């Protein structure tokens, strides 16, 4: 894959999905996903009964972890929920324990739909569910070890890009470099500070391309993006208030990108020629 380029928002909007504590799922429309200004469209309720932990993947895919630890795949097509054999979701896993306050931010989805988990044993693992073939093609590949005492949250924020929050509230940016030497991708794990003061932030989510939506301790919804001049995150811009009581606030994971949009994951599946899988498989630990 080519190196990340300029930030683009192909649709000019990022759907933002707050999950109320009563289980209602809503869709809001942030109309300046690349710029980060306070510009919103309309909103509508799109679901009920969303207890547990909810993650938004690319192109309308959702991962719902029930209070019983069941992992479910769903797809919202913008008008309604797509049917699966068992209703509007497909059960794709059990024992996904990411509900508690200490674990809910230790799972994330990136721009390509790769799920990352930060395990209690300190391992960083990757998972990939093929939404078209409906099976797992990467099942818990270990990407790093010994992270348990250092990081307490992860945010998938691009194609093979992860932000990790230290226990001191500092963000580090790790990424899989598959453009410098495409035949041998490497997992880069710098510990340079990208941003600080994130200790009490919650409900992290990325729309891709190093754009992060997050709610601070006073309930302000903030928009962060990569500053190409400083190679750090910009200071967050306020794009909303009163978001502090939501169970989850998540955004579609590929509505901003630094890659060719023609290769973006679509609702019909990946269009990257297998790059996401190759990237993970190249850097996984034996």
């Amino acid at each position: 894959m080519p190196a990340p380029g300029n930030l683009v928002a192909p649709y000019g909007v990022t759907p933002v999905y707050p999950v109320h504590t009563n289980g209602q799922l809503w869709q809001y429309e942030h109309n300046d996903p690349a710029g980060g200004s306070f510009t919103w469209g309309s909103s509508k309720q799109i679901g009920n009964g969303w207890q547990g932990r909810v993650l938004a993947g690319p192109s309308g895919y959702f991962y719902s972890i029930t209070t019983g630890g069941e992992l479910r795949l769903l797809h919202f097509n913008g008008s309604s929920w797509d049917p699966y054999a068992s209703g509007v979701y497909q059960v794709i896993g059990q024992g996904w324990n990411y509900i508690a306050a200490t674990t809910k931010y230790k799972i994330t989805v990136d721009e390509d739909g790769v799920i990352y988990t930060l395990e209690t044993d300190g391992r960083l693992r990757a998972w990939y569910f093929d939404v078209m073939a409906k099976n797992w093609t990467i099942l818990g590949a270990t990407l790093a070890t010994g992270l348990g005492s250092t990081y307490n949250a992860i945010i998938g924020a691009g194609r093979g890009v992860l932000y990790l929050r230290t226990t001191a509230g500092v963000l580090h940016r790790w990424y899989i470099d598959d453009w410098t030497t495409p035949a041998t991708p490497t997992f880069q794990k710098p510990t340079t500070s990208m941003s600080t003061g994130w200790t009490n932030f919650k409900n992290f989510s990325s729309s891709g391309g190093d754009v992060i939506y997050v709610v601070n301790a006073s309930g302000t919804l903030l928009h962060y993006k990569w500053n190409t001049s400083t190679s750090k995150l910009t200071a967050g811009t306020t794009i909303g208030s009163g978001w502090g009581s939501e169970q989850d606030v998540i955004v579609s994971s590929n509505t901003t990108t630094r890659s060719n949009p023609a290769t973006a994951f679509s609702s019909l599946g990946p269009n990257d020629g297998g790059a996401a899988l190759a990237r993970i498989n190249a850097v996984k630990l034996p």
Partner: protein
Amino acid sequence: MPLSMAVRTLDYTPTYPTYPSLWMGGYGGAQRGNHGTVARRLKASCVVFDDGSGTKKAMLRIDVVSIAREIHQQIRAAVLPLVGNVNGNFLITCSHTHSGPMIGVNSPHPYVMMSLNAADISAIGQTTTVFINQLVALVQNTLSDATTPVNLGYATGSVTIGYNRAELPTVLTEVQVLTARRTSNNSLFALLYGYGCHAVSRGNDDVFDSDYCGFAAEAIGSALGIGTNVFFFQGAAGDQDPEDPHQASQVNTLGQRLANKVVDIVNNGTFTPVTGPISTRYNDLLLPLNRDLGNPAAIIELRNKYTARMAANPPESYDYRHAKVMVDQIAGAGVQRYFFMPIEVWKFGGLNIVALAHEVLSVYETRIKALTGTKTWVMGYSNEIGGYVGGDTTIRAGETKHFGYEGGWTDDPNVSGAGTWTTFYAWAAPLKLDGDSITTPGGPSTEQAIVDAAAALINQA
């Protein structure tokens, strides 16, 4: 392997009250309904082949402008048990005459096309039900008929009755002729013929007419003494228009010219044997649109664009009506996200028939015929018709070629172009523009995907 055939023809020319609606399909704009005048009867015909394999194969050809996917699926579901539950054993093709009834209520969309109200659209739905039932009965009856042993022969010739309207160089001139002669005495039993040209030579009026191809079929049947056993199959005519002017007399002029050529081929052409067994294949290829309309972000973007289009256009315009249908669909069950492209191949000894859905442009005849040295007859308007399928040149050109009509977009490739096919067939976005090959990230182009799928079916063991 010996072949035998059965054929039946049904005169289905709609009349009230059997058909609750006589609204006509083919031209948008002013409301257009038949008031009882018929220039040439509208027919549906079924051609059944028995190759001795134990399962008959059936072709259903209809003088109608289009049948949408849901209608195709209803007919297919009813017929399939009779042909071994093999999709490839049943083929539907439409002549695409623009002087027949409007069938179906979604694509083309009667409100977009003619600003019809709910009651009128409901009547079209009832007419569609009558139409489907008649066609299914026709196929069922023909499959039950005794067959006549025949020898098949194939020949082609060339005649020009039209031009390329889409600013492309290709003008289709090939006439395909498949004769079926009784094995008992070599007399002509039936004749199947094909040509690629829009059936619009009559022009836009309120008269039912099977157009130049229907005229030709009658003339051929009369000249060769086989009556109604002459069956027309439309080609890849999405960009092919008959010579101007389009008026009633032009039906006779062009139809007679085509008929003369077919009769000449039968009398003087060099026919090669076409033999059984018949091997059939079917692929319901899924073509992506240029926007991923399963993505909520794309739907929000789309809703905003169509809402703006409604605000910018008067309610009596196509653009407003189409935009309203899109906005209503988004607020309801959602827009169509995928463009299915059924491709069907019938392989005889000595002849491949490749039948493509939709209003395919001539580039597909050219490219598919080049795939194999075997004689290949490319049909369009087969199984279902839900829009135009241009080649990459057309799809990528947008309004720079023929106002974007066959490309489906004008100034914005991510949304239906005002007054293009995506408007009338009620699609939210045109077909995918980009992609070059199967190995390129992003997938193959629309044109390449279709050609590859056809090649795979032809080469399938």
